[in-house]
């Protein structure tokens, strides 16, 4: 049991030595969505469908009834715009709607990436959370893990279903001067694209320059450790379908548990050694008993 002895000595120091560190890429890209600017024209949905070769959005040319029910991104649409009435009134005393665009938030430390059994999801250095169907086994643990309920699934494909979600237009933004389809088309500049740090500074600046216009909360700055996509709004985010989330990165606790238990497989090795020791002792006792019985008999 020499191996076991050694692993007992190594084990606890390994367990204590590992501190969880964020794997967020430095200098990555992001988007700022200013909900006070969005007019609900849904041009971003069109652009998204074209860039990603998806079917055209629901009721493409008619905004009149599409807002009557709340939609979610799904296998055929990576982004959707919903309308919320918060009780605010316009200058003509009619209800003042707030339009909210929803898509993958591209978390800085994504739960889906940490959860994926086969490393099919990865956080790219430019900030995009990218899905590689060729590694996917379809366990859907990414969907379970995502705090924003974003990944969608091709449930009606029997053999080769894929996880579907916003790609951050990975191919476009990887090129010099490339901009995501939705940000490029937005006619009112509700979506600004650039370095995440710049977007954060821009958001803070808008809050400072326009006192009273915005609620003092940049959604995505701290939620689950920060997201690449950020939102500012004049209405509280919990009235707009945004989940209220802790500031701790989503994978921190589970990764800490996994690594403190299984780094270098120290705990299984210790357990193997201990059980082997017990088995050896109880086995020897049995043999002694047998020998004793035999000699007693003789």
């Amino acid at each position: 049991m020499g191996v076991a002895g050694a692993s007992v000595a190594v084990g606890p120091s390994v367990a204590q030595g590992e501190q969880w560190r964020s794997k967020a890429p430095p200098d990555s890209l992001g988007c700022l969505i200013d909900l006070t600017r969005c007019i609900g024209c849904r041009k971003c949905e069109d652009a998204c469908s074209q860039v990603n070769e998806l079917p055209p959005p629901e009721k493409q040319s008619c905004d009149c009834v599409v807002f009557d029910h709340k939609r979610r991104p799904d296998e055929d649409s990576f982004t959707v715009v919903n309308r919320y009435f918060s009780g605010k009134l316009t200058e003509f005393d009619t209800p003042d709607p707030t339009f909210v665009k929803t898509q993958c938030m591209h978390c800085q430390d994504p739960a889906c990436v940490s959860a994926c059994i086969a490393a099919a999801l990865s956080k790219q250095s430019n900030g995009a959370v990218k899905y590689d169907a060729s590694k996917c086994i379809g366990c859907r643990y990414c969907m379970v893990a995502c705090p924003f309920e974003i990944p969608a699934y091709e449930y009606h494909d029997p053999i080769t279903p894929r996880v579907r979600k916003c790609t951050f237009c990975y191919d476009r933004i990887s090129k010099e001067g490339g901009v995501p389809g939705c940000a490029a088309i937005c006619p009112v500049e509700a979506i600004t694209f650039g370095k995440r740090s710049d977007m954060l500074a821009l958001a803070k600046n808008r809050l400072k320059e326009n006192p009273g216009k915005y609620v003092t909360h940049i959604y995505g700055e701290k939620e689950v450790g920060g997201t690449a996509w950020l939102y500012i709004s004049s209405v509280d985010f919990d009235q707009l379908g945004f989940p209220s989330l802790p500031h701790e990165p989503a994978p921190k606790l589970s990764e800490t548990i996994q690594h403190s238990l299984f780094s270098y497989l120290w705990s299984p090795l210790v357990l193997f050694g201990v059980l082997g020791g017990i088995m050896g002792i109880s086995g020897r006792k049995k043999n002694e008993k047998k020998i004793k019985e035999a000699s007693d008999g003789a």
Partner: protein
Amino acid sequence: MEHKPSPLRKKFWTPGTFVMLAFIVAGGVAIIARFIGGIGYVTNLSDSRPWGLWVGVDVATGVALAAGGFTTAALAHIFGRHYYEPVTRPALLTALLGYTFVVLGLLVDIGRSWAIWKPLVNWNTNSALFEVAMCVMVYLTVLYIEFIPIVAEQYKGKVNLPGILSVFNGLLNRFLKIADAILDKTMWVFIIAGVVLSCMHQSSLGTLMIIAHTKIHPLWQTPILPLLFLVSAFSVGYPMVVFETTLASASFKGDSEIGILAPLTRITIFLLGAYMALKLGDMWARGSYKYLLDGNYQTNSFIVEMLMGVMAPWTMLLFEKVRTSRKGVFTASALIIFGVVLNRINVFIVAYTPPVTQTGYFPAVGEILTTLGFIAGLMFIYRFIVTWLPVLNAPKEVCS
């Protein structure tokens, strides 16, 4: 007590086996439908509720209830309580079949069944699911290796396949002989490995939902989920053995094993007590008891899990009268099993609350038929194997 397992050699086709066959056929139809129309065709799963009955019951509960295998192996072979050896073989068989069906269940549930090998070459050691998958794969292999001596005992030197297959007779005989000889010397490695692997993935199954902690109801959402899963697996191991040996001896009119089962339940008092203390202590420490009287289906499900599945059987087992009566032991064991089954369903399905859409979920007929079909299939093969291989203790009149 002389311990001599032997094949039952009883009539295989009974009304019971025909009922099982009917469930297998119904489940088979649902599975065929899943591979024609997709998961969405036979299930109520959605983008907001990606895991349902198949993961909660076929996989998570299946693994928990197969815990009888490693807990009895640890007791009889590692801690040297050879007195319990008569129950190790049926427990091993249950574990082997249980895990086989866990893998079959997974193959139906994952979208790309043909890609199930891919985690082997694309490691993600951050993922609790990756660890569970690796452990289950290795453990299933270990279980099959542990079972080889039982096959060898019956057929070594006697392999006699019919017809064209008879060309393999010599080869199989030689394989059984060599494997048996090697395993005679090395079995201890596999027995310990089996226990270690079980402890690893039983606990990691609990880690699975920790990354989704913002979606789990506070009554179950705790960082000690892995510990709770491990200890509950320990405590359901012996009750599961009690449950199945009682059923088997009743249906095959074999020995009543109450002599062995009574002391097993004394260990369960300790294990289940530890589990109960952890559950209550955790609730106290996190203050989650304030949700207990919310009166919705989630909190009610928690109350049923704790009262009927943990506290009631634990209290029952404290009484000598219960522990020595066949009915008492059986009832307490059944309640403990119920508690663990409900706990896994609660953690994976009931506690899961999608924060944005609040989508609900109830399994579709296709999902239920598939799950029932798998359970019937497991019982069918169990019955087949104990008929032809030395697993269960022979009835006394043959033995003496």
